[in-house]
């Protein structure tokens, strides 16, 4: 047990002498709180809900220890309850244990060793319980996400497939070759949409389940990768892509997660351009100095309406019907930043463009 964070133990007894003796014996091992009455003890637990073990005398004038535990359990279920008692009260103790009100009883007169081993056992049980509570909460979250996921899969995966199926059916009755061509273009888009969705799902699970693999990051190299990857898109859509990298000193991070962030921010910047804008541009600036990387991605595309700024990082949220999108990209970015303890801000004006600024600390 670390000396700095001693666990809190509350001792309730109507005899002041016992309280002092208890405190004197255990103050070095535990953070000992004492109470002289049930009311005082309740107050103590209210003030210190992180009390791990409550030790209580059975025979007290206002209520018995068993009664006290039954009462405190309703409000504070986490602290481990231990009863101090002589053999004469054994019947009530057995029934209390069987009802689950008491974790353990300690026979009077007690020895320091009895108490210590009981408290340590109790603490272990407490830890296991809290761990279980945390795991349960995580599980609840995972279930909720899975529900959301299963729901969207029916739409985002079935949707494009059914579109293609419908198109195939319609195409059977079309003789006009130009109409067929038009449909093929649309079918291609559907296939790309599905593929895009699957890739995003892949990213999502990689990040969720994968452990971070921290390596030295060369931002220059990452930036060049992006230039290569986006070369064709730039050419096809006549977009000017500029990059600036300024890295001083080492930066450590997880390369896959960083790539997810860059890929998504840049692919959005390239995708959501204004079709008729003659000077389309995407600009990326990476500055990595003093252990913090700041990545700024700016475009002069369609922009995001003000009222959507808060929602764009939600799973499956889409702010536009233009272009192919899964509503997954920025959610993955946010998730990636969560893993890297990073932050993201957005500054965007409709028909002017968007600017995303990401900051990530070195690991």
């Amino acid at each position, binding site marked *: 047990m670390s000396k700095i964070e001693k666990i809190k133990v509350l001792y309730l007894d109507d005899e002041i002498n016992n309280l002092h003796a208890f405190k004197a014996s255990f103050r070095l091992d535990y953070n000992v709180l004492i109470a002289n009455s049930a009311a005082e003890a309740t107050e103590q637990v209210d003030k210190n809900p992180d009390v791990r073990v409550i030790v209580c005398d059975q025979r007290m004038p206002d209520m018995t220890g068993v009664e006290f535990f039954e009462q405190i359990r309703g409000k504070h279920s986490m602290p481990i309850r231990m009863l101090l008692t002589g053999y004469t009260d054994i019947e009530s103790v057995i029934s209390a244990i069987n009802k689950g009100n008491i974790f353990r009883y300690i026979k009077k007169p007690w020895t320091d060793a009895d108490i210590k081993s009981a408290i340590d056992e109790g603490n272990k049980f407490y830890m296991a319980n809290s761990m279980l509570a945390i795991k349960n909460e995580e599980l609840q979250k995972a279930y909720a996400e899975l529900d959301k996921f299963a*729901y969207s899969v*029916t*739409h985002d995966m*079935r*949707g*494009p497939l*059914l*579109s*293609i*199926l*419908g*198109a195939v*059916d*319609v195409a059977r*009755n*079309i003789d006009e070759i130009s109409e067929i061509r*038009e*449909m093929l273009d*649309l*079918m291609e*888009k*559907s296939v790309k949409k599905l593929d895009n969705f699957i890739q995003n799902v892949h990213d999502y699970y990689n990040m969720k389940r994968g452990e971070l693999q921290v390596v030295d990051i060369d931002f220059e190299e990452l930036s060049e990768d992006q230039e290569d990857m986006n070369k064709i898109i730039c050419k096809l859509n006549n977009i000017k892509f500029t990059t600036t990298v300024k890295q001083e000193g080492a930066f450590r991070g997880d390369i896959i997660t960083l790539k997810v962030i860059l890929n998504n921010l840049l692919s959005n910047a390239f995708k959501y351009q204004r079709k008729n804008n003659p000077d389309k541009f995407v600009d990326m600036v990476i500055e990595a100095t003093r252990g913090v990387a700041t990545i700024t991605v700016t475009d002069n595309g369609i922009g995001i309406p003000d009222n959507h700024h808060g929602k764009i990082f939600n799973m499956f*949220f*889409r*702010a*536009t*019907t233009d272009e192919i999108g899964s*509503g997954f990209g920025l959610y993955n970015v946010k998730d990636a930043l969560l893993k890297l303890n990073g932050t993201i801000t957005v500054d965007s004006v409709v028909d002017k463009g968007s600017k995303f600024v990401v900051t990530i600390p070195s690991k």
Partner: protein
Amino acid sequence: MISQKLHFIVIDDSKLDCFIAEKVIRNTGMSESTHSFIDAREALAYIADNTNTEVQTILIVDIHMPMMNGFEFVEAFEKLPADMQKCYIIYILSSSINENDLNRVKNYPAVRHFLSKPLTSNTLTALLERL
């Protein structure tokens, strides 16, 4: 079966699905005109602006759409004046197999029927013949 030809409005964020619906509608041979919208809000504005309450119009509406989804569209539609509503028949068309979605569709008085994607000429013709 009604003798007069029908007007159609298709609302779906997928251009391909709009395209398919247009072809399927044309193939029924019962259409006078077809308008497609990839943004439900534009469709709503179009409907609200349309003062001609004589023509019978079939609305085919997708559920999952960005900006305004099918449910939001139907809710907004149900707030339109009654004499405006009466010349529209709403069919929901979706790839959803989610029970909550299906149950929710049933709770809107304005929705006549739920159709599963993909839309085919046979299903649509059968429905229109029952009008």
